[in-house]
């Protein structure tokens, strides 16, 4: 298992406040890893340590196999980073900024000429690249932030709340963007306090609260670990008694309850088995009106974890 990010016992204090407390974080390569936590959980602090803006008070930090220690510019070559609410020099034009940052990455003129228009198009800033950044809206600066994080075709992209300050359309666009970024064989590490965002985009998540990691796993495992088995609720056009018996024989079904037209099916798996279920019901002569998972949302998982954590204290 190759790791893009690994922290062992990472601790960071601001005076007496412990912002990150003995955090063990493992981000596998080629995953989209969500870093989830409420406001003030320590997400930005952790990320700033990862990119070398803050010095840890304890623990070790490895990014792309290299220990983060001191000012080693070479280690930043393959890492793209978008700060939380990024701010750029107001006196530069959008494309000038990307061009200068590109030079700082050591990109050739040819590479810059190919890459920059592509990125501007991708983040939706095409046509505004000749304006001064001082004239950009918050959302436009945010988009520029994403573009500059992708300049050097990084192996690891770290995004700190990429959709903060964006309108609903922008948020959807950013989500699509993140999925596309990851397709190209990259690791994406993104922080968010928006559960549905992480749920829709990420393959892995780490939940952090008050500087402590509460859970870290694949999205699926997190669901199942906390919520137990998933439940499927099926509504039939009219009640048919034999259906329940047929379903009980399926290997991934642990129990079926029937109440009139409604079937509540307990599953042993978290795979999407709706096609098999609907096939069996149809074969038994049932007509399905609706079918939905009554899985726990990440929100519920999250609340449960936080309450448990509070209870332990």
């Amino acid at each position, binding site marked *: 298992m190759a790791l893009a990010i690994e922290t062992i016992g990472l601790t960071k204090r601001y005076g007496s406040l412990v912002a990150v407390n003995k955090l063990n974080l493992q981000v596998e390569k080629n995953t989209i890893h969500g870093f989830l936590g409420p406001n003030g959980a320590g997400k930005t602090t952790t990320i700033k340590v990862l990119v070398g803006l803050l010095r840890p008070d304890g623990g070790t930090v490895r990014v792309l196999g290299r220990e983060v220690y001191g000012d080693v*510019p070479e280690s930043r070559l393959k890492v793209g980073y978008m700060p939380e609410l990024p701010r750029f020099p107001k006196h530069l034009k959008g494309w000038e900024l990307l061009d200068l940052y590109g030079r700082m990455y050591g990109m050739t003129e040819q590479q810059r000429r190919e890459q920059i228009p592509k990125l501007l198009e991708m983040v939706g800033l095409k046509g505004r690249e000749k304006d001064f950044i001082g004239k950009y809206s918050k959302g436009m600066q945010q988009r520029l932030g994403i573009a500059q994080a992708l300049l050097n075709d990084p192996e690891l992209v770290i995004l700190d709340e990429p959709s903060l300050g964006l309108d609903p359309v922008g948020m959807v666009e950013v989500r699509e963007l993140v999925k596309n970024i990851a397709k190209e064989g990259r690791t994406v590490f993104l922080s968010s306090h928006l559960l549905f965002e992480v749920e829709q985009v990420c393959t892995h998540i780490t939940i952090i609260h008050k500087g402590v990691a509460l859970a870290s796993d694949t999205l699926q495992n997190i669901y199942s670990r906390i919520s137990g088995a998933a439940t499927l609720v099926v509504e039939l056009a009219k009640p048919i008694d034999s259906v329940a018996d047929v379903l009980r024989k399926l290997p991934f079904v642990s129990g079926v309850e029937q109440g009139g037209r409604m079937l509540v099916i307990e599953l042993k798996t978290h795979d999407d088995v709706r096609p098999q279920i609907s096939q069996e019901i149809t074969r038994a002569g049932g007509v399905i009106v609706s079918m939905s998972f009554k899985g726990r949302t990440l929100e519920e998982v999250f609340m449960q974890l936080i309450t448990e954590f509070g209870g332990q204290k």
Partner: protein
Amino acid sequence: MKTKWQSDWKTRFWAVVKYELLWNIRKKKFIGVMALALALATLSLALPVLVRNIAGEYLPQNPDYVISTGVGVGGLGMFLFAVAVAMNSISGEFESGSIVPLLTKPVSRTIIFIGKLLAAFITLLAAYASLLLYMAVGGWIIYGPQNNLHLLPLSLLGTLISTFVWIAMVIFIGTLSKSSLLAALGAFGIYMALNISASIISVFTSQAWILNYLPGSGAVGFIKENGTSMSVSTGTDNIASNIIKCVLYPSVEVAYLKFSFAPGNPFTELFREPLWFVLLRSLLVAFAYIIGLLAIAWHSFRHGQVLE
């Protein structure tokens, strides 16, 4: 990979210089100071002509006009240029938050620091060279053919060194406080305090030597050349004019006088030293301040965390 990384450090370094240069020349402060300097230069060239014209006279030819005015930027002018160029250089990036994306690019903080200094140097060089050219051409037209124009590059160099003392001061305060306002005000306070106390200390006490080790205008001394007496300021602000004087009058001596209200001769001579020595010392003092202040600022910038 390794070799490529090492070979393109120049690209990365010049990217920082360009990043900073674009900022310098687009800053309203800098454009304002430059416009002010050009306006004052125009005034100082045109006013004598106008006054004489009103009086119905012609201005006499003066072949030493240009060399005696040099770049034409005095102590306050150099201070203003320094503030305009340097006050936001590092602290401004912390204040706006643009330091965060900058420091996470694969460029070392040392390179960023040096790149910013070089950009300040280039900006000042361009500003001063154009002022000098303007004064030289204007002076030639108004006062006729000029002597010793080949010494102008020395005057330019001297003015740059003098200004860099203030640049170092502004960057020092700005980097440590991370506040542009404090950088400008703090440096201005020091400039004013030194300026006011310098003239008093120089004339009324016998401690003028202290001023030779402080930045700014320094002590006031007098030189006699061909029977005419001229005053000389010995401080780091006056390197340019002292270089020119040194070349023109190589063996001249500077006398330091003390003024007293006692009856009889109000001036007593404290001591004298050769002008070349005065110049050499002010150069060493200037470099000591530049290197010392910048070294501390660099150290703090290199090891500082970005809490913003």
